[in-house]
């Protein structure tokens, strides 16, 4: 099993390469063979990997990455062949129909996800985010997802894809209602963290789409991190930073208002 890390120089600003590390490690720890393949910006993305990780990045590199992926269409071919793709933030935007380029004008995406990303002038969405996954995935045991969002544009979903779930804390795609874009085996999300480091269950769900059911793992620390973030995410979002830093007065006010 090969996890391709696509253009980390262009799409890797927020530690999202960690998603590939987590995927590979979680298979290896179960005794299965797995390797991460880093595809640099001057290399051709192979269309034959089982799993692809596309990370977040800045405006200009994002446009370059989109141009490269549009030209050779490796992700199109991989998705048609049934590969799994995790696309985070700028990665999600690139996989959509259109996104806002460096000067704000509409730029063609890959059209793999039926969504459009635009800049509306609304303030940048920055902070902890919590998402209740849609019933389909919650029913498979996927708990509340935690992440850190940091994006300036908003994404509208078309009928061809569904959101990851409902936003509990944070902004998500647009206005605090829904987050992410999923179609088939392509999982698009605004959650950094990296998302799979914070949500081991999501990592296993994506892996199981490739290799089938997975045995248990010692997840003491990943689960402790997940639970800590799920517990503090809403409060930190409202306080605008870590609990330890908020003034006693602010904490008291929150406590009084029952939040």
């Amino acid at each position: 099993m090969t996890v391709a890390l696509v253009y980390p120089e262009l799409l890797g600003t927020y530690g999202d390469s960690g998603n590939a590390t987590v995927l590979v490690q979680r298979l290896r720890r179960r005794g299965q063979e797995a390797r991460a393949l880093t595809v640099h910006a001057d290399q051709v993305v192979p269309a034959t990997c089982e799993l692809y990780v596309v990370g977040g990045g800045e405006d200009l590199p994002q446009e370059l990455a989109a141009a490269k992926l549009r030209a050779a269409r490796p992700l199109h071919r991989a998705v048609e062949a049934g590969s799994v793709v995790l696309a985070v933030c700028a990665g999600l935007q690139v996989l959509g129909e259109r996104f806002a380029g460096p000067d704000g004008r509409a730029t063609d995406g890959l059209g793999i996800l039926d969504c459009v990303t635009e800049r509306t002038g609304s303030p940048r969405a920055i902070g902890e985010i919590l998402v209740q996954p849609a019933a389909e995935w919650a029913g498979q045991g996927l708990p509340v997802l935690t992440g850190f969002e940091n994006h300036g544009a908003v994404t509208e979903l078309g009928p061809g894809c569904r959101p990851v779930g409902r936003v509990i804390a944070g902004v998500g795609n647009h206005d605090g209602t829904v987050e992410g874009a999923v179609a088939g085996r392509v999982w698009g999300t605004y959650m950094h963290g990296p998302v799979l480091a914070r949500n081991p269950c999501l990592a296993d769900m994506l892996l199981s789409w490739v290799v089938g059911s997975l045995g248990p793992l010692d997840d003491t620390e990943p689960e402790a991190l997940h639970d800590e973030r799920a517990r503090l995410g809403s409060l930190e979002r409202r306080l605008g930073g870590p609990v330890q830093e908020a003034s006693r007065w602010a904490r008291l006010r929150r406590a009084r208002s029952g939040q």
Partner: protein
Amino acid sequence: MPLTGKNAGDMDHRASPPGPFPLRTRLAALAGRSLARLSRRAGRGSGSVVGGHAILAIDRSALARLAAGRETFLVSGTNGKTTTTKLVAAAVSPTGHVVTNVLGANLPSGLATALASGPRGAPAVLEVDEAWLPRVATQLGPSVMALLNLSRDQLDRNNEVRQVAQRWRQACQEASPSLVVVANADDPLVAWAASGAKRVIWVGAGLRWKADATGCPACGGQVVFAGASDSPLRLEDEPLAGWSCSECGLCRPHLDVLLDWRPGGGHSAIVVHGTRHRLSIGLPGRCNAANAAMALAAVAASGRDAEAALVAMARVRDVAGRYATVKVGRASARLLLAKNPAGWAEVFDMLSPPPAPVVVAINARTADGHDPSWLWDVPFEQLRDRFVVSTGERGLDLAVRLHYAEVPHAYVPGLHQAVEAAANNPGSRAPGGPDPGVIEVVANYTAFHQLLSMTGRRP
């Protein structure tokens, strides 16, 4: 451009005595100093932030007025600001007749307090937050501005490092023609930003962390670096080293000053316009040699003597508690600061060899950035042959990173307990040694300050 001689002498850092400040500025400075003193007495830190807010509230132009008539050096960049500022300040005024923000309060409020508290007419050497640099430079009208490096840091606040470079470039373009920019030519983002200035001293200070510099700042094309990424830059390789964009041809400018760094110490040197100056500094690591090269170039650009500057810089051994060895319970701990992947890239070499244990403390407060996902850009796999204790308010994020990096580790929430856990771990004792010696403690910004307070060394 010559660094010494006529041109540099034109800058005249021995300015004539300034006239009195306007009444409003004097009132503002008085209020700020008083408030800062009150805040210190109340045990609420240095008071420089609250004092500075008062100054700027009373006189919005206080920065410009308090800096008028001074020779001003500004130092900015993602890493090395505090150290470079301290080195420049030591060299500019070995007697301490200098205004500087040694406590790292590098936003306008901190700068205002520093300027209001320092001696009139003394030169000012100020570190400035990279996002604030353009606005601060416009108000202060510096004579020398040292631009060290730019890389990902506090992305929840700065968003895109490229945007910071863009704003720097604009500030350089709009600055007074008398400003000398001292720029790290090895960092493409810095080089592109500085090339907007009219007078630039290019310094080959090196760049170990390149992940934020592989996309050309001018056109987005791929920047290609010559030579192995980790090998030290040597004089004989100099014409081959450097970088260039494969699309638009933007490339490293021709160097005026070069750091000739030899690991292991002893023979490193800084070459200033062909003259080789032996480098001896009291601070460890390649990054501090690079800071010294930037500092020396800035001091030389003001017309001062390079050899005398190096002598003064060599006396600096402690920068706001960094590299200090402190007692934590019965253990000895050496404190190191690393707050982003570029900082970590320099820290690995400074650690004493395995199996010496390492404590890593991570917070995610505002001054650290609220998003610690940068931990995944640090190759912690390099610590596999030692025992690591993760701690701090985001110690769990680090523990998970170490878990997947297959580093033997423990998560111990309290800082004090974490250092003791490292000292007591049997696996970390050197063969035959009775105790693990000095524990290396690497912390990011606010965790570092908590450690300093805890050990009674208030920053």
